[in-house]
Structure formats: C-alpha cells, structure tokens
C-alpha cells in the first residue's frame, strides 16, 4: 500500500499535514493516528482539496485542523450526520469522519448505528482510548466495567461495555477493522483499505490516553494480528467476534452490501414545472 509512484508530483504524507500544532499531550496515541491518516492519504495520492475530514468534540476530534484537507469540527456526537449530508450531495469527495469513543459511541451512538445501516460510501475512524480525555477522565462506553478511576463512576461503571465491531456488524457497516496507534503504518494500510472499500467503513483504532489511562501504554504488548483474512460473510464475521479479546488488529469484514447512493445531480431548469400541480385549470 506504500506509495510507489515515482512521479515528481507525488504527494508525501507531510503534504497532508497542516501547520497547526496539535493540542494533544505529549505521548498521546492520537499523534500516531494523525500520521496514519497522512500516510494513507499519500498512499492513495488523494487530492487534498477533494478530501473532507469531519469530527465531533474531544481530544481525538481535533484531528481535522491538523490535516491539510477540508475539515469540519462539528459539535459533540454529530459528526456522522454531517458527513452523510456532505457525501450524499457531493459524491465526488472522499469523506472521512473521525473522533473518539465518547463522541461516537455514547452521545453519538444512535448516529453510529444508523450510519452503519445507511451504508453511505465513507469512512469512520474512531480513536478509542476507553475514556473521555477532553473532559479529564470519565468512563466511556468502551471502558471496562470495573475501572474505578472514572471521576463520575467511583465504583466502576458496572455496566456492559459497548462492542463497536459487534454493533457495526449487526447494523450493516460494509467494512469493519481494528488498528492500533502503536503501528501507524498498519493503521494507514487499514485506513486506505477502508476508504477504498465501497459503502460505510468503520475502523476502530486503539489510541492510548496516556494522561488519564497511563496503563494503556501496555496495549502495545497486548495487541496481536487477526489470525485470518477478512471475510465477506457476516455470519463468519459474527462468529469471529464471539471470541474477540478486543485486541486483535486487522480487517474483520469486507462486505458486499449495496451502498446508499441516491442520484444527485441538481438540475435548475425544471423547478418551474412543479407549479402545474397547483394551477386550477378552469
């Protein structure tokens, strides 16, 4: 997937980076995700002006401004509908949505599920750190139920975690993968695959919050490659998820579900004809 073109005009990963300095804590996993994005874009040689990255609110959701593409930093939890509205009306663009686990699975949980169902051709990347980084350390839907350092859940959340890949599959996403910020090149490859696959692609990237979940530094020791290649059969994918330890890395599912692609080609001329329905033919 690495960029092999020798053309002098070839864009490098750094050409996709903006000059804005990230606000992230030194060591935050999101830096690597940012570099995975730029590598993937370079691998695909996307025209920066034809790419739009949309996000909600959170540390991770700051990513659009750090890229040299078009971006929309929307409100908390609503990035997916913004992306859907854009992609439906501008099918010529590469639309990517990025954000955190709180943004995507808590306040934005419904849009996530419905976006999987709608299966518009776009890519959704969630930088999962199992915590609310931006608001300084509360539990998120992916947090383990017994994590007792969440500031609003002193005894742990004591509720079932949210399994993003399971919900994505059950709802109808057409591409499902997990990556790790510890391996930006691998993550870049997965993002590339996701963008290139038709329909709604979902990529969970494990991206440690070293400030509020310092123990996540150990993730690099835990993650391991998925043992098998991606399947196109939802039933097979579902069975694999039953034994998921939440740390396998790789592409789980590449489906053949038909993307939602309404015809959209605004024609100005015919607006006048609409009047005829109202005219009284005396």
């Amino acid at each position, binding site marked *: 997937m690495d960029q092999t073109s020798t053309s002098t005009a070839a864009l490098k990963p750094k050409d996709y980076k903006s000059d804005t300095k990230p606000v992230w804590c030194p060591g935050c996993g999101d830096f690597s995700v940012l570099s995975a994005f730029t590598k993937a874009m370079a691998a695909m040689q996307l025209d920066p002006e034809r790419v739009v990255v949309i996000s909600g609110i959170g540390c991770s959701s700051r990513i659009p*401004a750090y890229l040299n593409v*078009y971006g929309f930093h929307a409100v908390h939890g609503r990035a997916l509908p913004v992306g859907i509205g854009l*992609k439906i*009306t501008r099918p010529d663009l590469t639309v990517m949505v990025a954000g955190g686990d709180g943004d995507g699975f808590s306040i934005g949980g419904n849009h996530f599920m419905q976006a999987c169902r709608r299966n518009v051709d776009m890519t959704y990347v969630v930088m999962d750190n199992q915590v609310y980084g931006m608001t300084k350390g509360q539990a998120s839907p992916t947090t383990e139920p017994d994590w007792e350092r969440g500031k609003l859940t002193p005894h742990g959340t004591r509720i079932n975690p949210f399994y993003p890949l399971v919900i994505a599959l059950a709802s109808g996403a057409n591409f499902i993968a997990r990556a790790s910020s510890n391996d930006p090149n691998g993550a870049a490859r997965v993002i590339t695959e996701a963008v290139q696959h038709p329909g709604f692609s979902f990529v969970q990237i494990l991206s440690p919050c070293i400030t509020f979940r310092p123990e996540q530094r150990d993730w690099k020791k835990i993650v391991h490659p998925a043992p098998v290649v991606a399947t196109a059969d939802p039933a097979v994918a579902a069975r694999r998820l039953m034994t998921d330890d939440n740390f396998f890395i790789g592409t789980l599912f590449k489906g053949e579900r038909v993307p939602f692609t309404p015809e959209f080609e605004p024609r100005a001329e015919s607006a006048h004809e609409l009047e005829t329905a*109202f005219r009284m033919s*005396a």
Partner: protein
Amino acid sequence: MEEHKDRASSSISIALIGSGGAGVMTAGSMLLEAAGRAGLFGIMTRSAGPQIRGGEAAAMLRLATFPVESHDNEFDILLAIDWLNADRFRAEIPLGTQSLIIGETDAEPPQAFTDSGARTLELPLKQIARETDGGRENMVVLGVVCSLIGLPLEPLHQVLESLLKRKGQAAIDSSVACVDSGAAHTGKHQGSYQLSLSSEKQCDLWNISGNEAAGLGAIRGGVRFVAAYPITPATELLEWMAPALEQVGGILVQAEDELASVNQLIGASFGGTPSLTATSGPGLALMTESIGLAVASETPIVVVDVMRGGPSTGIPTKSEQSDLNIAIYGLHGDAPHLVLAPMSVADCLFTTQWAIHLAEKLQTAAIVLSDQNLGQTRAIIERPADVAFVSGRSIQETPMEGYQRYAVGGNGVSPMALPGTAGCQYTADGLEHAPSGIPSSRAEDHRQQLDKRRDKLVNHDYGDHWALIEGEGEFAVITWGSSLAPVREARAMLLSDGIDIRIIAPRLLLPVQPERMQQALAGVTGALVVEQSHGAQFFHYLQAFYPQKFEFMSMAQPGPLPIRPEQVVADIKTRGKY
C-alpha cells in the same frame, strides 16, 4: 385585500361534519376545488377528534369573491352527515342567528349548536343517497351546499370527473347524480346564501396549502437537499418535497431524528448545496444546539418550524404562535441568526424563498416560523409572483494564498471555499476561532468573530419586505404570522365604520429593524399587539427591541382556537380606542 362592501354576499362560511368514513374531508376538498374553478377564492381547514383514523371530522370552508386568509366570525352553514361527537367541534364552529344548521331528517342537532339560535333544516340525506346506485351522502351534501350558495354545478362535475377518474365512470356517474339530487332538495333555501360570482373569471388561481407553498418556495430558492424527521404538522411539507425534489435533481433523506437531520443539512451546505428542513416545536428544540453550530461555523441552513400548540408535546394538530421565543432566543451563547415569518398561505412561498436567499447570502441559519394554521390550510389564491430570490452564496472559487475562511472586515460576509477548491483548505469550526478557522480563546478573536457574525446580519439591507404595513391611523395593531389575517379583516370591519387603524406585521423578526419600525410607527400614539400565544411572547419581544414612548397593549390568546376578526375589533373598542 380588496375591500368588500357587502360581506354577506362576498364571503360564505361552511362547515361539513361527520363521523369516521363519512367522507366530509373529500367533500370539502372537492367543494374548494370547484369553487376555485368557478373563480372564487377560498380556504379549507380540517379538524378531527383524537382518533388516529376513523373518528369524527370537520371540514371548514370559507369561499369568497376576494382573497381570504382566515375564517370569519361565524359560519353561515353547518351541514352534518351525522352528529356523532359533533359537539366536540362546537368551539371551532361559531354560529349566529343567521346561520343554518342542516342535518339528517329526525336526527336532532346537538344543543351545543342549536343554542346559538341558528335556524335548522332537516334533509333526508341518506335516502337521497340511497336513491342512486353507489350513492354517498357526502356527495349529496356537496349538491346541497352548491345550491345554497348558488355555485354552478358544472365546475363540481368537472372536479368529480378528474378526481374520480381512477375509480371508473360508474363512480363518477353516481357521484354526479347524488350532487344533482342534493342540489334539487334545498327547496326554498336555494340560493339563500348566494355568493355574488363575478362574471370575469380569475384566470390564474392556485389551489395550494401553506406547507406546499413553503416547499415550492424552498425549491425556487435553490434548495436541493432536505433531511428531516416527520412531525405533525410539518410532515406534509416534507411529503410534498420528497418527490418534488427529485424532479429538480435534489433529494430528501428521512433521518433517524432531528439531531441527525439538522446536521445532515450542515454537511450538505458545507459542500455547497442549499439545504432545508421542516419540523415543529419539539423537533426545533432538539435542533437548537446544532443551529448554533451553523451560526458559529457560518454554514447556511434553513429550518421551517410549522408551529403547533405547546408546551412539550402539547396539541400537535392545532395552531399556536408560541415558538416565537425559542426561535428568537433559543440558541445558547450569542448566536445572531435570521427569523422570518410568513403571514398567509401564499406568503409561505415568498418568505421561505426569501429565507433561503438570506441564509445563503449571509451564511447563517434562518428559522422560518410557519404554523399549523398556515401550513395545513388549503387555499385558492392568486398565482404568486416568481420572485428573483435565489441562493447567491459568496464563494471563494479560485485558489488563494493565505485564504482565511473567517476573514473579518468588509460587510462581515467572508467568501466560503467549497471542498474541491485547491489551495483553500480550512477547517470549519464551532469552537471560537481566529479568522483562519483555527480555534482560539483570545478575547480579541472572540470579539472580532462575534462582531462579524452580528454585523453581517445587521448591516444587510432587507428592503421593504421586512414587514407588511397597511393603513394610516394613529392607532396601530402590531401582529405577525397567521394572526395577520384576522387583524386585516378586523381593519376592514372598522373601516366600514369609518375608522382606520395602522397594521404593522414584521415578516423579518430577526435581526430587528429599529429604524424601519420607528418609521412605520411615526405618528402612532398607541398600539395593540395581537398574537396567538399565552405568554404574550410577541408583545415582550416588541418591548425588548422596539421600546416606545407609549405603552404597548397586549391581546394574546393561546391556541387551539383561531383569533376571530370580531375579537380584535372588540378588543380595540373595549380599550376605548374608537
């Protein structure tokens, strides 16, 4: 509005009621259409009991020789196919001693109606219907009404023919027979509510509802993307637009909720497509956070709120003007935006189209406050003019070194680069930002951007469309939206007593127009504020932004009943004005 000398013969009000399946709505629609074909103006509104389907229903019509926008003080004719639960409509169908109540033979009309002192007439509707094979009472009723008001049967026959075509010739024939037979049964009452039909036919009349008119205005204004979630009484606007948009190469997406729909608009608009949604109070409440995003990120969107009774789920099927507050003030933070209100069925077209034009031009969010009364009223109107307002967004079309999406200066509107434009990449943001779009919490950036977002709206010249101003009196009635219609009728009533009042009805509610209002109020010494809300929201809004030397007086009546012209007249007279 043309002034009409002889109210009796220039406007007739008719209510048709019946229980589930009686077909009064069909009859009402046909009557309206036939009247239109005969060159009359008119409106029809509907009312129904709580049953989802199949309960009692009322079709309320007013037919007139001049454009009408609201119901009259009383109904002239109340015709019931049956009286089951009919008294539920008592308050909505005021009668007088000159009114005529018609019902089935031997079926006593409810006392609630007869108490009015109206005359009554019994007709063997069922039997007449039965005389025709496949005959139905609602068709008989149509004939009766036509005969009473002197409407020729021919246009009605045409209507039956075109509307029943699908059902085959037999259906048409039996309906025509019922109509004719009904018309033949009115005896001495024939023509007793004769409308003076003009001989020259109005040649360019439309039969349209406010919701449809708003939808057409949206498309004319350039809207090509709608995302929405159904809600009464806005749904028909959306249902009309879904196929209509396709005809012009646009699309409507049914979203999972209002949070999704408004954000889909923001995405589509960011990509350059003028976008709109329609909802009602509860949906608007869910959208306010993201409307604020549209304001802060300067992404044009239009939200039509077809208001219904509130608060909370309230009274979904009835009209009220009680979302004024949330529309004006409902966004958190200082979020200047546009609020507009159509004042008639026809004006739903103009105002919605204008709203799109303004939102696009000024790169902000516009809220259009329609209401159930405007939206669901079906009216025969003169063909509205095709105004030139189309979306005209300021676009940065060419690459530009150091492009700043939120550049300050000038009139506050900064050209927007659309994705696809090389060299202008930026990130739109709802966080406060520097001119580049990069988040900033500096006091200076905040101040500059707050000024920018306010000034671009305040400095725009909205022209005379900002309000409708009529009359010359020293006493003003200030009103808005669907309350204008009864106020105009009240003015006509007062004029016939030789009294003129001045009517001021702002179509543009935000940004406020203090200079224009001052001019409109020149010479005025007292003003009554008429609105359909319990909390006198419009009255307080006027005090907040247009304080005057004189004190405003408030006539605020909540829904569900419409304001009647004579109430306005009485209110003015009670206060010792005239």
